[in-house]
């Protein structure tokens, strides 16, 4: 029982998306059965679905079908038109308009439609509520929901719940579409989905590509199935911790070549390839980190104004030396190191396969990005503190900026608005940068690396980019949290100032930081438990650690497992949940508080070890493509599913519920199977894929098969009490 089982957390990415989809469908079915069991449809509820033809029960099938076709065509045309409009708005940066519209729509859903449904449900179940309470509750519910979904960071879990709620409401409304029209619309939407996402020039594809190009998130409601601190993930994380210990140095023979030296060096993991080795992380998944590293770096770089980018480059190129791990304490490490640590996450694994250079480069570039003020400092060890100080002082401002910019949250990060835009734009101007973002990241990486990385970035899907960050963030956070724990544990070592510094670095840049941490986080997650790592980094906060490392001799150099054990318990479930929750609030916290990231929970996503093990590389959603040597394609850790998919799945099931429950279950199983198929394709192709076609095709097919063959067979069987 010592070694963790493979089954412990295999497939959590998938259940992470299957569970909310199931929940959405279940509630929709419940609502349908509660409020509209007869399947009354109303042409007025969804007007655009009945423009051309109003279904009458008395019409012939042919007429219904023809009318339904017409209706569906119009419906899909409207949807496509809206997508194009959205794309144009996005292209010409009318973010305010997009958000205003989406805010308006979402508010209506949360306030008026939820209210209307709520009243209906209350009537059905014979409960009473006074108007004032209802209005008060609804108003608060809808304001929080609207702000949370679009404008403000809120805890991931509540964001997910709100998203699911939107899906439920809209799906429920869509179940009022007349029957024939509904089925034809479903099929047409699936077809449209294929076209829009896969065909070159399709509106969704264009939108996604534009979003990637701009390093923004899609201006849309997208469910993100990243660990929300829920139970399974917490458990997974626990497993991971153990595993980390158990496996450490596993396949990777050379583990801890610099055992003793290791501790000191580890803080600077990124820069120190040898140190990297001991981390369980490096095991057998060399390539993957590269991918990770690349995207974070990219995103970071993207944000830097031109000059900085240049610096970054310079630094990257030249600073390698500076980041020598052995210079650790007191060296530029303060921030740079830390940053580096972050990148290193990616970087370090790179290190494992390649050389130090890439990591360092990334780290450096990163650093500049982070400290935005003085890129140069990073090369001057002595100034590190000053730099950190400066940075620290800026934190609040920057943070505020961010939050004003609307981009603040780690979780719900709306599309960037003007200011951030400003920051990003310059990039293209950067000598190397711009479109070459990928190249840019790669370059420091050295010859060997560049190719895979580039390929990688090229292939990267929107999912991969966006999805990775939060996760990473969490990891970083985890690391940080561990860091703090360790400090506590040590009883002193970390002067508060240092803690703060690291905080500062981690905090405001929440996003960047996040992106930084791919490996580091993971490593720290695990690594934190790893005595080697822990020592130097001032507590395994590898990521955050850099900072700590900056000043501190190893605090916990004793590699004894006792220390490790002592730390681990700090991550109990509540704490994790709490941490995750705070994690998403970073934009809001007063500067003096430890940035949420620090408090953030480790990404409890337990599967990392697997990835590691299998050579699955892209966990953060960075697509590592096939270069991992992994034998199986792998899914990104955080899978994103457009809310539209939720809606049409649920609409299908809700529609099925108007007929019978047998069709509901059949359609449910079919949709989930289709979703599984889609995810399989996602793992194979590593790009944005339409989620509707498989599921809707299977769902519709199974609905009709069940209705036409299974039911006439099973019902006599059951009523004759014969079973098999």
């Amino acid at each position, binding site marked *: *029982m*010592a*070694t*963790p*089982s*493979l*089954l*412990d*957390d*295999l*497939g*959590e990415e*998938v*259940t992470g998306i*299957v569970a909310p989809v199931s929940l959405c469908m279940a509630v929709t079915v419940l609502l349908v*059965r509660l409020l509209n069991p007869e399947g009354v449809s109303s042409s007025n509820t969804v007007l655009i679905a009945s423009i051309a033809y109003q279904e009458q029960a008395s019409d012939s099938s042919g007429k219904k079908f023809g009318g339904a076709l017409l209706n569906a065509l119009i419906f899909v045309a409207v949807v496509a038109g809206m997508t194009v409009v959205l794309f144009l708005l996005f292209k010409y940066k009318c973010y305010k308009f997009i958000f205003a519209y989406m805010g308006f729509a979402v508010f209506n859903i949360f306030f008026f439609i939820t209210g209307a449904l709520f009243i209906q449900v209350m009537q059905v179940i014979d409960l009473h509520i006074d108007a004032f309470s209802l209005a008060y509750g609804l108003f608060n519910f809808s304001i929080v929901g609207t702000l949370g979904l679009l404008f403000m960071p809120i805890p991931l879990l509540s964001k997910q719940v709100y998203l699911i709620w939107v899906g439920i409401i809209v799906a429920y409304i869509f179940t009022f579409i007349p029957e024939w029209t509904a089925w034809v619309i479903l099929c047409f939407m699936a077809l449209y989905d294929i076209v829009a996402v896969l065909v070159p020039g399709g509106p969704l594809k264009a939108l996604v590509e534009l979003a990637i190009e701009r390093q923004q998130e899609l201006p849309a409601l997208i469910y993100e199935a990243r660990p929300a601190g829920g139970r399974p993930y917490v*458990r997974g994380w626990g497993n991971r911790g153990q*595993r980390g210990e*158990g*496996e450490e140095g*596993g*396949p990777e023979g050379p583990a801890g070549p610099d055992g003793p030296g290791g501790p000191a060096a580890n803080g600077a993991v990124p820069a120190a390839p040898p140190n990297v080795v001991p981390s369980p992380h490096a*095991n*057998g998944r060399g390539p993957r980190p590269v991918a990770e590293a690349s995207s974070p770096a990219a995103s970071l770089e993207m944000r830097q104004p031109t000059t900085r980018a240049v610096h970054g480059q310079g630094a990257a190129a030249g600073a390698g030396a500076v980041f020598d791990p052995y210079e650790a304490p007191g060296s530029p490490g303060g921030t740079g190191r830390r940053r580096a640590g972050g990148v290193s996450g990616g970087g370090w694994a790179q290190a494992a396969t390649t050389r130090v250079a890439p990591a360092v480069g990334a780290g450096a570039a990163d650093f500049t990005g982070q400290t935005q003020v003085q890129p140069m400092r990073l090369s001057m060890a002595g100034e590190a503190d000053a730099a950190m100080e400066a940075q620290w002082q800026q934190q609040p401002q920057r943070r505020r900026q961010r939050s004003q910019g609307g981009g603040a949250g780690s979780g719900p990060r709306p599309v960037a608005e003007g200011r951030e835009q400003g920051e990003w734009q310059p990039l293209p101007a950067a000598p190397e940068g711009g479109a070459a973002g990928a190249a840019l990241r790669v370059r420091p990486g050295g010859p060997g690396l560049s190719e895979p990385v580039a390929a990688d970035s090229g292939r990267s899907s929107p999912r991969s980019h966006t999805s990775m960050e939060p996760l990473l963030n969490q990891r970083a956070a985890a690391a940080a949290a561990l860091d703090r724990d360790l400090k506590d544990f040590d009883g002193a070592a970390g002067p508060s100032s240092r803690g703060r510094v690291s905080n500062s670095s981690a905090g405001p840049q929440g996003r960047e930081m996040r992106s930084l941490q791919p490996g580091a986080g993971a490593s720290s997650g695990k690594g934190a438990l790893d005595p080697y790592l822990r020592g130097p980094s001032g507590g395994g906060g590898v990521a955050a650690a850099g900072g700590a490392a900056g000043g501190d001799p190893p605090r916990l150099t004793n590699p004894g497992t006792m220390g490790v054990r002592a730390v681990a318990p700090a991550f109990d479930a509540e704490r994790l949940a709490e941490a995750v929750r705070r994690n998403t609030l970073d934009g809001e916290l007063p500067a003096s508080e430890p940035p949420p990231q620090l408090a953030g929970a480790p990404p409890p996503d337990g599967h990392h*070890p*697997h990835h*590691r*093990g*299998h050579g699955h590389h892209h966990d953060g959603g960075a697509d590592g493509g096939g270069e991992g040597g992994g*034998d*199986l394609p792998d899914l990104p850790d955080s899978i994103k599913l457009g809310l539209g998919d939720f809606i049409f799945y649920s609409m299908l099931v809700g529609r099925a519920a108007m007929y*019978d*429950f*047998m069709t509901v*279950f*059949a359609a449910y*199983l*079919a949709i*989930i*199977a289709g979703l*599984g198929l889609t995810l399989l394709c996602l793992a194979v192709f590593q790009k944005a894929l339409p989620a509707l076609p498989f599921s809707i095709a299977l769902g519709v097919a*199974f609905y009709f*098969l*069940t209705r*036409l*063959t*299974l039911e*006439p*067979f*099973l*019902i*006599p*069987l*059951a*009523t*004759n*009490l*014969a*079973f*098999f």
Partner: protein
Amino acid sequence: MPIDFFGLFFLGLGPGIAFFIVLIARKSFLVLLALFSAFLWLVVLLFISAIFRAFVPLSPTIGPYTGMLAASVFIEEAVRYGTWWLHRVTLNTLDGMARASGHRFGLLDKLYMAVAWGYGHGACHAVFFFLSLLPLTTGDGTLYVAECPQMSVFLVGALYSLAFGMILTSLTVIAFDGYMNKNYLVVAAVALLHWGAAFLTLLNFQRDGCVVSMPVLVALGLLLTGYTVALCWKKGQVAR
């Protein structure tokens, strides 16, 4: 009536749900495997129903139903061999992954997976034979058949779900074990037990037959569950 609904629901599916929460829901992979298994068995049900689509409704006498049950069980047993094949492929893949990652993937894990396969089978049958019809009990009234005045159709369905949930889950585990050890006697016994259980329900065509058949089926389910638990226990001991 809600009381009927919930009473029958928990009678028929409660143990299965508890089992799911305690054992399967803890591991994502098992959940997915059970879902896939349920989907597969739904396909099989659709296939069987498609075959008999031309003949339904069968005349409600024991003869046609005997043939239909025999054929259905035969198809299911054939598919069970197919699931064993899938199971083996999955095991090989996972074995490789485990080796690569240094994870444990032992006999116990394989048993878990076999259980998930079986659970999917049992759950699929319970859902489509019983749960699909259960919402009818929320209305006023119920349904009895003449041959079984003691229990409503829904109560029989609940007992069926209970019994066959255990039977099908256990049989899958036992059958996979038999296949793995190339012990075809066990495999044959599994098929015979499945046939036997199915034919037991034919007793319901006799007047008052359900009073005999349903308790016997539940007892058979308990027996098989006990056997499976013992089997797993033994394997678990060895594995350790």
